[in-house]
């Protein structure tokens, strides 16, 4: 939601809408608290990535091992996040759940950004009437909430872990098309691109050298924040029971399982959500720092 919100608050030419212009110092995080925030965000992301790659390094418990006598025990030294209805260690399940969430997050944002980049540049380079018509189509799709689009994709393909990854990817593409197209249209009229054309350099080479890298830069900044949006969206779909099924350790599914025993054992639902929050905040902080750097370079 936030990657899309940020993009929709810009006008059709891709410049921030009146009032969206940033007032912070340009060129990355300059103030001390901002720097500390950036360092903290990077540490959180490294830890989560570590959990995704080698979960066994972070916990000695098996995320699937049930232990009925210890069911629903509150957080303790042995079980820092407590245990669930069947006595499984919630912390271990959070650790092992990092892999699917990060994979969907990075895969969906990356895939959507790549597809949006290609389509957006094509639309941006197309003759004006074609480009305008294509953008009208994209705008119509943008009229639908992203989460609803993802739900429609799940309705078509049926529930499943792979489906929700695909659904989140497809639902995110239009925003990237819009951004890539807007940037391409501006670049088309930029002096360095026009001069390169005047020098007789073939169009394909000008596009490959001067348009694609610049547009890819701005798209990748949005995609950093998009990873967070994708993690939240996929957790939502799993929470609704449309994704992976029990006993898979997955953050959204864990929160769904915790919902039924919220009155007795808040920790089952709360800790996976806190992990999502920490991950997404870190991605936002990183994305904002990248954006400030990109804007600083552009001016």
């Amino acid at each position, binding site marked *: *939601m*936030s990657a899309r*919100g940020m993009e*929709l*608050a810009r006008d059709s030419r891709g410049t921030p*809408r*009146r*009032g*969206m*212009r*940033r*007032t912070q110092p340009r060129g990355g995080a300059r103030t001390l608290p901002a720097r500390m925030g950036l360092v903290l965000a990077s540490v959180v992301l490294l830890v989560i990535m570590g959990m995704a790659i080698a979960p066994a390094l972070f916990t000695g418990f098996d995320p699937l091992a049930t232990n009925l006598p210890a069911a629903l025990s509150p957080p303790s030294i042995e079980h820092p996040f407590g245990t669930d209805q069947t006595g499984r260690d919630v912390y271990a399940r959070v650790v092992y759940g990092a892999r699917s969430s990060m994979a969907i997050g990075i895969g969906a944002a990356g895939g959507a950004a790549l597809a949006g980049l290609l389509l957006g540049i094509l639309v941006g380079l197309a003759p004006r009437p074609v480009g305008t018509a294509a953008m*009208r*189509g994209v705008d*119509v*799709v*943008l*009229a*639908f*909430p*992203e*989460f*609803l689009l993802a*739900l*429609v994709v*799940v*309705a*078509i*393909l*049926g*529930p499943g872990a792979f489906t929700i990854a695909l659904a989140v990817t497809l639902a995110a593409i239009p925003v990237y098309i819009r951004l890539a197209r807007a940037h391409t249209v501006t670049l088309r009229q930029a002096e360095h691109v026009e001069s390169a054309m005047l020098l007789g350099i073939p169009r394909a080479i000008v596009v490959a050298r001067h348009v694609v890298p610049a547009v890819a830069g701005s798209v990748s900044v949005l995609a950093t924040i998009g990873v*967070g949006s994708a993690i*939240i969206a996929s*957790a*939502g779909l799993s*929470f*609704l*029971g*449309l994704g992976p099924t029990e006993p898979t350790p997955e953050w*959204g599914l864990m*929160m769904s399982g*915790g*919902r039924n025993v*919220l*009155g007795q054992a*808040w920790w089952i*639902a*709360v800790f996976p*959500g806190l992990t*999502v*929050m920490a991950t*997404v*905040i870190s991605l*936002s*902080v990183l994305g904002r720092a990248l954006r400030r750097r990109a804007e600083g370079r552009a001016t």
Partner: protein
Amino acid sequence: MHDTRAAGAPRRALRRAIELAAGVVLVLWGAATLAFLTLRLVPGDAVDIMLGPHAQVSPETRAAIRTELGIDLPWYEQYVGLLSRMLRGDFGESYQLRMPVAEVIGRQLGPTLQLTALALVIALVLAFAVAVLARGRRARGVVATLELVVLSSPVFWIGLVLLTVFSFTLGWFPVSGTGFAALVLPAFTLALPVAALLGQVLRDGLEEAERQPFAMSVRARGASETRLLLRHTLRHGSTGALTLAGYLVGSLLGGTVLVETVFARAGVGRVTLAAITGRDLPVVTAVIMLSAVVFVVVHLLVELAYPLLDPRLRRQAAAQ
């Protein structure tokens, strides 16, 4: 010169109206096309999906159902058929409930309207109150952090946390139910992310407006900061937030699917979820159309509100 300008104004207004109407038609047509694609793209046989996995039906009945659904017609005839039926307000029959989709949705519209309307009010009040009250660097820093936290949390998780704190621990609100008290927590859950996003844009808009020349001239007239805020910068600074609000109202509908599940409330969100898990496609297409209608209505209201908010847009429209 003077005459042509005077004569041009109604013509421009007419052109604007035609543009808006074209936009409305385009979005609704796009939605109907999306709905058609949804029905067509489903892998597998539509009759199997309609009957469910355990049905045992004779080939004759299957053929009868196929004719009734019009599946054997060429795609363009099906497309035109769908469009004309939708124009008449006929969304077909629910596969699961075996009653008209319009009725299935219509029955659940009330609770969802209550929920989303209250959420919208809460979100607007919160966003404006925070933007107006949080003056100064420190306060804005705190608010910005809170907004980041809310926007980085899954909306259903916010609901679970609110339930834990206010229902299970403090006992202020019922865990579920139908009264107003049971509506408060779901509405807040739905409102918080919207308020946070609106608040961000509104705050940026205010800061921008305060740097405009008109702000300085108002200050130079000796007006107080409060007067400047309430009469000038707030209006001006809210245009960006208004645009975004138009999109966010639509997203409330997506949010209700999650929030109604968390709080076990009846409503369109629950119907949508049941339709998706049960692959009740006519209901899904109706939800798509509902979402498009909401978007169109909200968008028209937003368009009408711009000139009211920013007098410069009024003059622009007259001078173009």
